[in-house]
């Protein structure tokens, strides 16, 4: 079974902190994604990576950056956390169009 692991289930950070969300997949998938999920808004794509060091902006990249130095790891970085970044963050990898998700990280910025 494909496993996508996010480093934390719950995270509380202070406004202005630099925050790293880590995601690791064990199936050698080329594509990896970061989404945020908010009530009533569904899943919105933040960033997409289709290979090591390759990335594309999604619908809401402002305030975020990503890093993909190794194929299995895709990191989401909040440069300076703000309260409006409080959300559920979901990482996924995909193969043959099918996405496999991690368990999610619920981030609260106070």
């Amino acid at each position, binding site marked *: 079974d494909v496993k996508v692991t996010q480093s934390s289930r719950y995270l509380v950070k202070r406004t202005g902190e630099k925050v790293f969300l880590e995601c690791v997949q064990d199936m050698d998938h080329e594509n990896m994604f970061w989404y945020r999920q908010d009530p009533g808004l569904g899943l919105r794509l933040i960033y997409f990576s289709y290979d090591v060091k390759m990335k594309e902006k999604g619908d809401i990249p402002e305030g975020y950056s990503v890093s993909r130095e190794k194929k299995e790891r895709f990191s989401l970085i909040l440069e300076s956390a703000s309260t409006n970044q409080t959300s559920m963050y979901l990482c996924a990898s995909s193969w043959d169009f099918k*996405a496999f998700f991690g368990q999610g990280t619920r981030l609260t910025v106070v």
Partner: protein
Amino acid sequence: SQQGEEDPQALSIQEGENATMNCSYKTSINNLQWYRQNSGRGLVHLILIRSNEREKHSGRLRVTLDTSKKSSSLLITASRAADTASYFCATPLRAGANSKLTFGKGITLSVRP
């Protein structure tokens, strides 16, 4: 931008009844997928239907695709309390394998015991 839009937003049925959920999308696609999300968890892939297919089955799930109407439906037959979850349709933005995958806002299904 969100390509798919599910309908209804919420559905409540009795155990044993069938649940029908719909998804409409805007641009041409080469496949459409349905996912389930249990409360507070990640999404789980249920079924993928390609643009040259009209219907597909997987256990109690039946998915149809009408490319002329740009719509899909997911039918869950003989529903169970364990089917209570949110359901999302998803479509790739590009034809190639390296494509962004976009999701709708989801349908909340409640199955009453």
